[in-house]
């Protein structure tokens, strides 16, 4: 395993870079999109709720590979040219956003309804109450499940390997094929994924503890 790590360090670390890049972009993107759709799901107007609900249900029930291939194959045929990295990252963002929307929605709804009523009674508007009172409490509640989604996101970024997105898994496949040492290569790849996901896991745990006492 160590010979693979050293002999192919440049490919593996360039792959790790693409994986980190795609994960970072998708993490920010899916958090923004997910929050937006969570707010739509509990929105005040019926048609806003319907749109939010429909998006979440459709997206989270389609496999990630199908969404990604859609962007890699169908979008370039009819709309605009996107390369593998872009298609993979967009697919990853959209797919994860549905799960994050559900996570955040359940967090918001688990905040006692008295909080909203209290906030409204002292004169805050719905949106002021949502952003200043409900949302900060909800975020603390959803930190652990959100952490799960982030870790899944990093691991799911291996989808890029199927659309030639130059990520860690893609490089791993190429190294496995050129060295014929499948086992050690994937062991090295697994270890590099761990290097990314373990700190993320600990970071989420740290935030969970810190905000619980606050």
């Amino acid at each position: 395993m160590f010979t693979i790590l050293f002999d192919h360090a440049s490919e593996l670390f360039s792959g790790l870079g693409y994986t980190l890049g795609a994960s970072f972009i998708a993490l920010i993107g899916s958090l923004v999109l997910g929050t937006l759709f969570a707010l739509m799901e509990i929105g005040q107007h019926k048609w806003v709720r319907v749109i939010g609900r429909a998006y979440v249900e459709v997206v989270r029930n389609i496999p990630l590979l199908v969404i990604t291939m859609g962007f890699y194959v169908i979008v370039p045929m009819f709309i605009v040219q996107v390369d593998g990295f872009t298609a993979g990252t967009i697919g990853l963002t959209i797919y994860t956003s549905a799960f994050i929307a559900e996570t955040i929605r359940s967090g918001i709804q688990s905040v006692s309804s008295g909080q909203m009523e209290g906030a409204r009674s002292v004169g805050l508007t719905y949106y002021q109450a949502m952003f200043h009172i409900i949302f900060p409490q909800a975020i603390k509640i959803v930190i652990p499940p959100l952490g799960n989604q982030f870790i899944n996101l990093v691991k799911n970024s291996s989808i890029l390997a199927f659309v030639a997105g130059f990520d860690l898994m893609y490089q791993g496949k190429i190294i496995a094929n050129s060295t014929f040492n499948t086992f050690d290569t994937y062991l090295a790849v697994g270890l590099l994924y761990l290097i990314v996901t373990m700190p993320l896991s600990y970071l989420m745990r740290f935030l969970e503890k810190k905000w619980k006492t606050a």
Partner: protein
Amino acid sequence: MQKWKKWLALAATMLVALALSGCGQNAASRDALAHAKQTDTLVWGVKADTRLFGLMNVKTGKIEGFDIDMAKALTKQVLGKKGKAQLVQVTSDTRVPMLKGGNVDAVIATMTITPDREKVLDFTDSYFNAGQSLLVAKGSKIKSVKDLTADTKVIGVQGSNSVDNIKKAAPQTTVLQLSDYAQAFTALKSHQGDALTTDNGILYGMSQQDSNYVVVGGTFTKEPYGIALNKGQTALQQALNKALKTLRANGTYEKLVNKWFGDIPGFDIKEVE
């Protein structure tokens, strides 16, 4: 105390992983020919995504192609009339690990005999002489491998030696590697690359499927296909080589080549035999 236990658990996990990496050898080391004779079955790794060589017929659910017919004919030669050829789907990506792991006895899947592969596998004599070429959309500016520059992208398939060859023949160009030929052709159609490169036989199959794409520039490598076996399967290797000679002598081979490649425009049968 708690912390100490955590680190110990982590260290133990890593040790297990390292220990596992040491034991790569397993069931694959048994004599494949003797086992095949016992069960009257030879397990073949074949392609199911490659027109002309091995393609899944969606209507019948059966894999059809030149490699498949060869596998069946060879099985009959090696095991007698009762012999059955069991077909297992492989891709360029999975064929070596599956052979090494003992999932299949032999791989007949458009596989070129290369020195690198011979280090880890054994091959029979060549049964088909292909050569690498390019497939492009009709009217493309790319006429041969010389037109591949830093501004072009070439699509290849993971685990095929054509990706190594193209890096040598056109070092400037970007190579995108997809996991199988069906996906690679789809990527070409959605303009992810300017050309698709692999062996001419496979490319002619794609061109036959969609006439908007043509093979250009002739061949720029020689790709003798062999049947791949795990290292040390000498008995099976000899039996298959003998069977290949018989098939060539009794006309079966020529009949099969004609059946699959006889009426493909631009393809020279004399070159491949």
